[in-house]
């Protein structure tokens, strides 16, 4: 299904994900929180995964590193440089994490060892993956801390995690994740807890690593401003599935899926014209709960301004839409063909919404 839009010859993907499903038990039934996600990640690429709480993006991030929660059932295919990792077991994963792929998420308190100094944890992470001496590793560790915008790497190096502020802990976590120079960084809201000027510096660093070292970045975020500025391609998730996959520029210029359109319209923007106090264009309703998701229907239909009868009767596939892919019947070939016939006959074109 993953019909990559035509683009100039590229190197082979470093990571290929196909029909990845993560099912978790809810009230005695398996519910797919991530439901058939496919994509390729190329060297040096910045891929954004966006969506709202409950869309499955954080679970997807963890599944990409074989860290889905205990009791979850992960199926599908996950190939790193051609090597299948899905179902590889801890042995298969242990050499991958840290050196090939690293994960950064939002609760650094859970990721850092409370009894070790930041410096000790960095040195350990560096020496685990590279044959360097303790002193060289310590020097490298200080460089890493400076890279994540610490003005005083020496102080942070000697501190225990609890002595740092939340934002400092987050940056220390990023430094540790990057310590062994991984090829892929999966970053789940890496800057959500940071102040804007500090967040900007961390994002600059990630840009630089992509440019200089060919780091591939999977950036999971709900911040569309960051997506627009820092990524090449975007996957918009809704209710566990890919709603739209598009080159980031195309997504912002011509969002195809009604959910993507609504999401972009609801964004606060600086200096928009209009009277003060006017309302935001919010998408009505909420993301359906895992247990409330309907099989055999479009998950977004209940909130969709463009829904029509079919949306409640069948689940749409991902259809090509310009250079993008959209999971919406507005782009289904059979609907487009029917719309064309109706238009030709001169009968009311309103019968089918125009894509």
């Amino acid at each position: 299904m993953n019909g990559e839009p035509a683009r100039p010859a590229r190197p082979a993907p470093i990571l290929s994900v196909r029909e990845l499903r993560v099912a978790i038990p809810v009230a005695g039934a398996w519910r797919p929180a991530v439901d058939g996600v496919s994509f390729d990640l190329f060297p040096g690429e910045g891929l954004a995964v966006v969506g709202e709480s409950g869309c499955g993006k954080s679970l997807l991030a963890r599944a990409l590193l074989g860290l889905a929660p205990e009791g979850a059932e992960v199926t599908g295919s996950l190939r790193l440089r051609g090597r299948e990792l899905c179902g590889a077991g801890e042995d298969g994963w242990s050499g991958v994490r840290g050196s090939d792929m690293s994960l950064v998420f939002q609760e650094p308190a859970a990721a850092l060892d409370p009894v070790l100094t930041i410096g000790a944890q960095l040195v350990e992470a560096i020496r685990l993956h590279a044959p360097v001496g303790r002193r060289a590793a310590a020097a490298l560790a200080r460089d890493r801390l400076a890279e994540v915008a610490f003005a005083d790497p020496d102080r942070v190096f000697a501190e225990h995690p609890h002595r740092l502020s939340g934002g400092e802990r987050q940056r220390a976590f990023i430094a540790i994740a990057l310590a062994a120079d991984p090829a892929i960084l999966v970053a789940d809201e890496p800057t959500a807890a940071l102040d804007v000027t500090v967040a900007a510096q961390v994002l600059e660093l990630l840009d630089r690593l992509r440019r200089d070292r060919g780091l591939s970045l999977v950036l999971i975020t709900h911040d569309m401003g960051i997506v627009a500025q820092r990524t090449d391609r975007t996957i918009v998730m809704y209710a566990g599935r890919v709603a739209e996959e598009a080159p980031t520029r195309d997504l912002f210029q011509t969002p195809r899926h009604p959910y993507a359109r609504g999401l972009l319209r609801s964004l606060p923007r600086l200096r928009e014209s209009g009277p003060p106090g006017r309302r935001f264009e919010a998408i009505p309703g909420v993301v359906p709960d895992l247990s409330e998701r309907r099989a055999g229907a479009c998950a977004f239909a209940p909130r969709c301004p463009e829904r029509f009868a079919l949306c409640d009767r069948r689940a749409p596939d991902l259809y090509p839409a310009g250079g993008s892919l959209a999971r919406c019947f507005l782009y289904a070939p059979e609907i487009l063909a029917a719309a064309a016939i109706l238009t030709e006959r001169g009968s009311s074109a309103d019968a089918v919404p125009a894509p």
Partner: protein
Amino acid sequence: MTAASSAPFPADDPLFAATDLVKRYRRRGTRKDFSAVDGVSFSIARGETLGLVGESGSGKTTTGRIVARLEDPTRGAMRLEGEDWLALTGPALRRRRRDVQVVFQDPQTSLNPRMRVGAQVAEPLRIQRLAAGREVGERVAALFADVGLPPQAAGRLPAELSGGQRQRVAIARALATRPKLLVCDEPVSALDVSIAAQIVNLFLDLRDRHGLSYLFISHDLAVVERIADRIAVMYLGRIVEEGPAQQVVARPLHPYTVALLSAVPDPDARAPRPPAAVSRPPALTTPADWSGCAFAPRCPSARPRCTENAPDLFALAPEQTAACFFPGELAPPAI
């Protein structure tokens, strides 16, 4: 309503005024004090929204907690409808608290996880003795409708609601006492984009419906520009710029405001803007012997003068003030 004050409060006086608030803390493990809030003054008119922006460590949350009397300032004065807000203690304070309520960032931590949310909204009604018996249920139902929650949500536990619904519960709870001033500390920062838009719209609706005033604390300038009438920008405990919201965003005068605006990721931009004017990360405090402008060490416009004296807030444009010797030198980011 109790007859708290005998003299009627003049309608055109500000609802709330803070003068020269200072809050000093002792730095952990040291004997050194530092000022989290360092001489902050502002006022909020009836029905007005003051947006308080700044990064962590700017003192904006502490300021909000002082305004809500969750914390007392080391120094300074506050007036609520002309009355000395800091002089109130005990039962008088408890009674008056109904006029100033707070909505926090994360309803997950501000709500009791084991109590049904209907009961949590009813709680302030009982504590403040604003309703009894059947009236309580009716008021809770009206509050749920006011914040856009379905009535059946009252029987749920916080964990059974979505993040947006939980924040609506927290807002209903804050509204239960019919406050005049709502202190909102990052009330939409933990929410998803489409839900944050819903909640900001709710704040705007509630202001129109009830004539509420807000102290709206946020790091998100795009949201604050939309909801606030005026914006005050804080840096290391001080207000460095204040003025009408759209004017401050369109024509920032303080270099720090320019830096904040430059750092806002712009969803319509093709590429990141040139890195923010400030390159160095913020220090949490300035050295004790520093007599210059607190922002000078990060400021691209800094001159020798800036390291010698700290500028006061100067009136520089109609209704706009900035604490800078060289205001308006940096061009605001093009949008």
